[in-house]
């Protein structure tokens, strides 16, 4: 035995603890000693070890444990196999399926092409283009036509594996499946018009542009070539259907201006001559809500908008000071467990787009029901936010129920999620965890500590987490109607001074994708 450790009474305690573990329960004296220690342990109150309710840290039913594990494993295995099969089939039968699904347009296109070719005349309304994307490889046939009306209506027939680009954004949980771009130069078009051998062996995707921006995205003319971007649904049919159901559910709750997720705030201050009313979201926009928006962008093939709006955790996890954040952010943004937690790592452009999307959804809902509504959805103004957070009371320092950071009483817990309160606050929120390790992982993994957007932290207007959790973006009107963005309310990592309603901007107006910053929109009805 070689040890340099000097044994003294101070470091003997650990050895004695180990010696206690070595006691022999079969020995009468040792057993009596252990019984006594057990009694002592059971009579004490331990600081740890009180499992919060709902965390699943109670023993499961014995009879159901094994089948439960077996069931989960089976489902997981089937899901993996199913996905693998789907991916394989999707790759191999990509062309066939698309042609099969769109037979009538192909036929009509072929007929049209033949007609045009036989006439041998220059085409005004319809252009047949053979684009050579790769000098040595594939040929792309494309028919672009304009509909009878003045609305440009693009129908493209296109097959080229080279054109299919699949972009996977690591960390966001979203994948743009197929962005088909076809490029045809003006020289190519000339060749085509001189050629009678037009080859149409193409998959078909149709484009129904709905807005001007779509059209602009579709056809961007440059000096030398025309770039046509097809807008296709980037969701699978199943995902599209699920998305529509979710969307209709959300719109159902917003219809009739019930706005369950929004607090109606009426401001009538004769002294300041302010009289206004608005709806402020009760909690920060959640991952689930934001995903719905992103899915809608994908459903309409708005890949460019999607790229702007998607969460960009990769901008954060490259921080050399914080190497461990990647694992957490991936987990946070991808797992359904966190879908009710605030969306983070998005740009202010993404926030604005979300607000516009909400407006568009409400208006289109009313339009479908043959009603009209005029409203404005945007990020809140600083004054609106402050009024809402303080419930109109000047005595409130923080945006919490009582204007303080703690409940009233002796040794009470914090009611805002910020740097000092993390452990206690998340423990409050453990009931929202869906599996035993969630609360633990949120609390301990990589220092990132969020709480669900709708945790118990309501102020008078039922607004949650106005102070703490994530800093919220607000706007102040600047000169010439220029919006000045800033954050307010503090976040999970903030010193408590930034949680104050009148605190200065913690980020000095730098609203970049960050795990500290989220938002909540405001809705104003124009009367």
């Amino acid at each position: 035995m070689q040890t340099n450790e000097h044994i003294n009474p101070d470091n003997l305690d650990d050895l004695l603890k180990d010696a206690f573990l070595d006691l022999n329960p079969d020995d009468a004296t040792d057993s009596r000693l252990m019984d006594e220690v057990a009694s002592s342990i059971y009579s004490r109150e331990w600081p740890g070890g009180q499992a919060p309710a709902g965390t699943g840290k109670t023993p499961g039913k014995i009879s159901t444990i094994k089948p439960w594990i077996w069931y989960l494993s089976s489902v997981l295995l089937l899901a993996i196999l199913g996905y693998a099969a789907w991916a394989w089939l999707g790759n191999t039968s990509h062309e066939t399926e698309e042609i099969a699904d769109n037979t009538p347009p192909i036929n009509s296109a072929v007929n049209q092409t033949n007609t045009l070719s036989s006439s041998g005349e220059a085409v005004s309304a319809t252009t047949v283009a053979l684009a050579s994307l790769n000098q040595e490889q594939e040929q792309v046939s494309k028919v672009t036509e304009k509909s009878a009306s003045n609305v440009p209506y693009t129908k493209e027939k296109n097959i080229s594996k080279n054109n299919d680009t699949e972009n996977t954004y690591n960390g966001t949980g979203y994948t743009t499946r197929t962005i088909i771009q076809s490029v045809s130069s003006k020289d190519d078009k000339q060749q085509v018009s001189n050629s009678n051998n037009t080859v149409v062996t193409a998959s078909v995707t149709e484009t129904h542009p709905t807005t001007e921006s779509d059209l602009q995205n579709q056809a961007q003319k440059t000096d030398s070539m025309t770039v046509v971007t097809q807008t296709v649904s980037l969701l699978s049919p199943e995902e599209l259907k699920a998305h529509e159901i979710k969307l209709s559910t959300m719109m159902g709750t917003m219809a009739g201006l019930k706005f369950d997720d929004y607090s109606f705030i009426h401001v009538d201050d004769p002294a300041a001559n302010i009289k206004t009313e608005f709806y402020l979201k009760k909690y920060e926009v959640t991952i689930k809500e934001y995903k719905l928006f992103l899915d809608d962008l994908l459903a309409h093939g708005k890949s460019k908008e999607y790229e702007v709006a998607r969460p960009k955790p990769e901008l954060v996890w490259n921080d050399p000071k914080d190497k461990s954040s990647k694992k957490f952010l991936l987990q946070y943004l991808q797992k359904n467990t966190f879908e009710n937690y605030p969306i983070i790592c998005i740009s202010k452009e993404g926030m604005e787009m979300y607000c516009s999307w909400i407006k568009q959804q409400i208006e289109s809902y009313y339009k479908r029901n043959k009603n009209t509504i005029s409203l404005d959805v945007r990020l809140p103004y600083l004054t609106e936010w402050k009024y809402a957070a303080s419930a109109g009371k000047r005595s409130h320092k923080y945006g919490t129920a009582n204007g303080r950071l703690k409940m009233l009483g002796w040794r009470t817990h914090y009611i805002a999620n910020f740097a000092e309160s993390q452990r206690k606050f998340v423990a409050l929120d453990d009931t929202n965890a869906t599996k035993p390790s969630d609360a633990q992982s949120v609390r301990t993994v990589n220092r990132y500590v969020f709480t669900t957007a709708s945790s118990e932290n309501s102020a008078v207007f039922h607004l949650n987490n106005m102070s703490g959790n994530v800093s919220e973006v607000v706007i102040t009107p600047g000169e010439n109607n220029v919006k000045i963005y800033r954050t307010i309310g503090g976040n999970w990592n903030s010193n408590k001074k930034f949680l104050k309603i009148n605190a200065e901007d913690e980020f000095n107006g730098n609203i970049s994708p960050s795990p500290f910053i989220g938002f909540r929109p405001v809705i104003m009805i124009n009367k």
Partner: protein
Amino acid sequence: MQSIKDILADKNRGAEWLYQQFGRKLLGYSIHTYHINEDAGWDLVYKSIYKVIDVSHNYTFEDEKRVGSFIFKVFINYLKNHIRDERTRTNSAVFISLDETRKDFVQKPESRSQNPKMQILNEELSKFEDWQRMLLLMRSQDMSYAEIAAFINKPEDQLKVYYQRLKNKLAEAVQKRVQQANTSLEPNTDTNPSFKPM
């Protein structure tokens, strides 16, 4: 009111009852006293609960206290194994020749303590009187002097002094034995040709 036997006979109810009565306390104890990871602590608690449930039909428990003692002993056993596993995992590997392991296996098949230092400590502890040994071990479990005094039947106001003296004595004895063991393992330069003076 149902007897403990009836409660434990229903496995689900028994597990829940054990958890409510003892589980949280055992977890707190393991985290606080042995500083183990909380998740590992829950694992040990659950293992202990299910073990007790599985074997409870072989035992008769007079009262709740007996059940508490029983599950505590089971828990201590799991805790001991867990701590050893953790230390084995974190310590660097020590290579022992095959002959040596075979010799140990033959000579000391029932040795419970793997750590030589712990062996020395246990041997020195066994030289103490029962009440002295109990005092040291119970204090290591953060029991109060009042509790210990009641158990070993000694005046409470003297215990603190006793405890300090015993600790000093034990530390000295263990240190001495460890040094002896180290000295005996040092190579003998007289018999080593490479160290012989020219």
